């Protein structure tokens, strides 16, 4: 059912499945489809701003489907962006341990590109920076890398709590927006929003 154009009267709850799906795909997109571009921009700024702020506060570690599944349920409501961030986190930043699978790298570990295997680093006595000796069958195997930092720093304490909370609240807020877009009941007098 196409959305009523701005300026028309609609007093009943009109199910807008396309707007609901679009709101799931990208925060604000459902309202943009319904003809409320300013409202859509504000929703996108609020939800995505909250999600990006959470990532900035706690690092990519705050979106983790495997280690923090209950929180990820809330974060997933942001849409495919949350799944994308989680995929990048799992596949590009976690180290692959044959015995136990994926886990965050320790501060003294370097993630070897390609295989994802962890390499224990040692401190260079001259510079005080961590050094990794790469292994495996790649052309760079046997070479030494310095500084060999871990792919990301696991957030702890308040920063982890608040970063996770920001991202989860973003999902909760987007749920409100999805419901609002899917069951459009506003605009009795029409408005250019």
């Amino acid at each position, binding site marked *: 059912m196409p959305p009523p154009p701005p300026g028309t009267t609609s007093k009943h709850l009109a199910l807008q499945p396309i707007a609901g799906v679009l709101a799931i795909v990208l925060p604000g997109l459902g309202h943009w489809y319904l003809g409320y571009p*300013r*409202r859509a921009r*504000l*929703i996108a*700024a*609020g*939800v995505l*701003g*909250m999600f990006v*702020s959470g*990532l*900035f*506060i*706690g*690092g*990519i*570690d705050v979106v983790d489907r495997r280690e923090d599944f209950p929180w990820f349920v809330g974060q997933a409501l942001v849409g495919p962006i949350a799944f994308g961030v989680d995929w990048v986190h799992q596949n590009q*930043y976690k180290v692959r341990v044959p015995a136990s699978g994926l886990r965050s790298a320790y*501060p*003294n570990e370097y993630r070897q590109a390609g295989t994802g295997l962890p390499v224990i680093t040692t*401190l260079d006595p001259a510079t*005080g*920076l*961590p050094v990794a000796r790469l292994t495996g069958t790649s052309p760079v195997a046997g070479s030494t890398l310095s*500084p060999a*930092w*871990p*792919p*990301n*720093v696991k*957030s*702890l*304490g*308040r*920063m*982890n709590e*608040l*970063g996770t*909370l*920001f991202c989860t*609240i*973003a999902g909760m*807020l*987007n749920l*409100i*927006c999805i419901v*609002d877009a899917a069951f459009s009941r*506003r605009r*009795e007098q029409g*408005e250019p*929003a």
Partner: protein
Amino acid sequence: MISFPGSILTIAAQSADKAPAWPMPPFRPFLDPIELHQWWFLLLIPMALLVSMTYKAVRLQTLERYWRHVTLMSAQIIVGMIALGASTYLMVFWFARFVAERAP
């Protein structure tokens, strides 16, 4: 900060102080957490603002006085959280202690 001599947390904290520091990488935005542990409560301000922005964008019938409503709601959240924190503080550090001292 309250310390409990001999507790596992105190021993762990003392051990961490004695351990050699491992170098940390330079800050990489969105990969590493920010260092705001001492000022974590300031994050309530952007949180309140962003919550208000989204909620009012959905809730308001018209967006004519949008930023006024957002500012008001943000202030209400911040004042409410401060009031909740203060009341919890009074409950735990004053009222509970007051009751405990008078318990038979």
